């Protein structure tokens, strides 16, 4: 008896499904929720329900938890354009082979230790490289002007970090 009920229920549900148009227009995204295309752990976290988020956070020591919450809040407050740029760079970083990722992280660490004017000079160089194709970037980095402008260490940093700058 119960089994036959299940057959009837399935039939009704199948009819209902059949009446739903395939690939309906996607619902408008909630303003605070990240796009479904964003795959960073931060976005995944933000897509979780509030209960799931709280449960995940509860696994951290209190101090660590509140610090993480604060960092997430700050990230979410960044202009959406900047968030997207960071996501793109994050994706590029994580698509690199592990050893390459390690090298890029090391270079970014080195970058942060440079003086503000040197950092600015390197940023400017990377900005200039952004529209270039890979072979043009290589040519630029091999140029005497580039070698003169940047120390060997800086050249290495730029070379590593150029991996994160998508050609425009």
């Amino acid at each position, binding site marked *: 008896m119960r089994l036959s009920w299940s057959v009837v229920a399935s039939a009704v549900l199948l009819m209902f499904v059949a009446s739903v148009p395939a690939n309906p227009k996607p619902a408008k995204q909630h303003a605070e929720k990240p796009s479904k295309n964003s795959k960073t752990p931060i976005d995944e976290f933000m897509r979780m329900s509030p209960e799931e988020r709280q449960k995940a956070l509860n*696994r*951290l*020591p209190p*101090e*660590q938890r509140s*610090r993480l919450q604060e960092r997430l809040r700050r990230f979410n407050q960044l202009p959406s354009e900047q968030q997207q740029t960071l996501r793109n760079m994050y994706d590029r970083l994580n698509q690199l082979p592990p050893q390459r990722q390690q090298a890029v992280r090391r270079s970014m660490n080195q970058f942060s230790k440079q003086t503000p004017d040197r950092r600015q000079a390197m940023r400017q160089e990377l900005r200039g490289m952004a529209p270039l194709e890979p072979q043009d970037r290589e040519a630029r980095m091999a140029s005497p002007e580039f070698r003169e402008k940047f120390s060997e260490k800086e050249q290495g940093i730029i070379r590593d970090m150029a991996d994160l700058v998508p050609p425009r």
Partner: protein
Amino acid sequence: MDQDGMHTPAAQPSWNTRVKDNRSELAPLERDAELMLRVRDGDQASFGLLLERHRGPVIHFLYRLVQRQAVAEELAQEVFLRVYRSRGTYEPSAKFTTWLFRIATHLGLNWIRDGRAESREESLDKETTEGATRQVADSTRTVEQEMVYRVKLREVRRAIECLPSKQRAAVLMHKYEEMEYSEIANVLSCSESAVKSLLFRAYEHLRSRLAHMA
């Protein structure tokens, strides 16, 4: 079911009480792995034994690494939680303590790296005083001796704190946990020669800061 969600009294885990380890017939190296395998098979008392054996070393290591007792204990809780969570997939491929200290080091270094050791000055003063009070039960010391001792302790802690975090972890494992180079290398996931190099640089630095204390 009680407040903690345990079925009482039959399902109350027996690891909830500190257990005396009377399995001395097992060799020390194998015993932890053996205990962990028993935890994997559902013997929760064995988890209590593992906790009893390693609680102190893990907390002390983390305390010296992050230099805050409360944080060290929170991190140690996380270490043992992770061990417990991993019981289902545990395979004794590496020495248990190596695995344990790898988790502890990872959590400790992350905590340091994330810059959570803020307002260190104040914290170090407070912890040095409280730590000295907690660790000293020697009532025969005079006030002067006590002051000298505290200054010395503070200097040692500062010297350790000034080491880069990986060097710090290596020194703590070498000095206080008496680990071999190879084991430290396994914990830090690097080569034995890299560990030696870390330690030589670290001790060089410590000699420059602490040799006068002889």
